[in-house]
């Protein structure tokens, strides 16, 4: 069902865990739907110096978390904000159609964590572009 890249990230998840002194965290999803993602950010000078995730969910959810965190590490918040679920799915070399929503969760949880950081630091929360109509779970 999953390709090798997805399986690799599922089985050997990068950045799994918690950042005790995170300065931005975001959680999306709910247990009823079967997937929850929580992102921990360590931001220094507008750059994500460390990122961790915790995920309750299927293989695609774990792999998406793993890949997405890899992709934003070392990036500025603005760069990280621009990471789309499509880019995550592409970096994973594709997800089964019914699992695309997992990559959406990854994007959303990163957005939530970034805005958490921004609000905590007296900045305005960025607005979602509203282009996630495809998010169905």
């Amino acid at each position, binding site marked *: 069902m*999953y390709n090798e890249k997805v*399986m690799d990230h*599922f*089985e050997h*998840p990068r950045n*799994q865990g918690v950042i005790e002194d995170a300065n931005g965290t975001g*959680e999306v999803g*709910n*247990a*009823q*739907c*079967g*997937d*929850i*993602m*929580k992102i921990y950010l360590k931001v220094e000078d507008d750059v994500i110096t460390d990122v961790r995730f*915790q*995920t*309750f*969910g*299927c*293989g*695609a*959810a*774990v792999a998406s978390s793993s890949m997405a965190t890899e992709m934003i590490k070392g990036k500025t918040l603005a760069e990280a904000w621009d990471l789309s679920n499509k880019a995550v799915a592409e970096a994973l070399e594709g997800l089964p159609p*019914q699992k695309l929503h997992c990559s959406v969760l990854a994007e959303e949880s990163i957005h939530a964590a970034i805005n958490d950081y921004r609000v905590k630091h007296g900045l305005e929360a960025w607005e979602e572009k509203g282009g996630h109509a495809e998010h169905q*779970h």
Partner: protein
Amino acid sequence: MNTEKRLVYMDHAATTATRVEVAEAMVPYMTGHFGNPSSLYDLAKDSREAVDAARVQVAAAIGAAPKEIYFTSGGTESDNWALKGVAFAKRSKGNHIITTAVEHHAISHTCAWLEKQGFSVTYLPVDRYGMVDPEAVEAAITPETILISVMMANNEIGTIMPIAEIGTVARKHGVLFHTDAVQAAGHIPIDVQEMNIDLLSLSGHKFHGPKGTGALYVGPGVRLDPLMHGGAQERGRRAGTENVPGIVGMGMALSLAVAEMVENAERVTALRDRLAAGLLAIPETYLNGHPQKRLPNNVNVVFAYIEGESILLLLNRKGIAASTGSACSSASLEASHVLMACGLPHDVVHGSLRLTLGEETTEADVDYVVAAVAGVVQRLRDMSPLTPTELRSK
């Protein structure tokens, strides 16, 4: 890919390997005695006799007469035929069907379609063990009721329904009674007479017979429209050139399964209980289905804080084949309607694991699986944001 050498197949409720002797018995009817049983010439006689012999085997397995057995292409066809066949034949008598909330989709989706055709269906609730109450069945009967369909044993949680009691109720009220015995046949005793069953579905590949084979028992005097219209095969009730090799294989597999049933059930029940005990030792793990009245080979548990598909993927890496009721593993992205009907909360229903044992399962397999599952559960709990601190590693 499985990175272990070991392969432990614990998904016998999904399908089983065709027994080698069954496959061997089938091949001659593919390449040699390939005649169409309806034909007149000698070549057809071998096929006809083989089909007749299989009919006797299937009938004997459920206490029926051979002429009451109709071969189909599987459990799904048998279920569809029973429901649609009776519904259309009895339309003028009434339009109400009674079933349960925990039936296989071959029943529940058929009922949903019949509702679109103007029939009215009662889906009876079940208790926390997935058990339906025969009194509830009786209470649901109206003058419009034409059919009651209650499965003999549940495919997900293994719960064995009070079929004989429901049969008594149905007979008392003169309502036809169908049971989906796809998971029960070859595992627990069945007697259509004693249980007052009018229609009963079987599927060959669930008891080490061939895929694409099934049967419907149709009791004396039961009228139903065909689902397959066409030729006069199966005494005019199920059209289509007979799948002779499949029928031969199914008959043989079922009669072997029934012959070995008592012995197997005893052995497998012990393994099942050992497996369940091992898994329930994992914290915040709960058994689904009835603690006693369950199929000898079924274990179904739910682990809090984690999701079933990930469990399966990691178990697969350890060579373990299993199943889950998680929405994430189903094509429809809907969580198991069976676990939901048993009252499992939405937020744990995704963490279920079904392990169904077979005749070849060993104690070593069970112990291997318990250890593997415990490891996998811990690993996923460590990853989950929901897991309370005291359940995390270190």
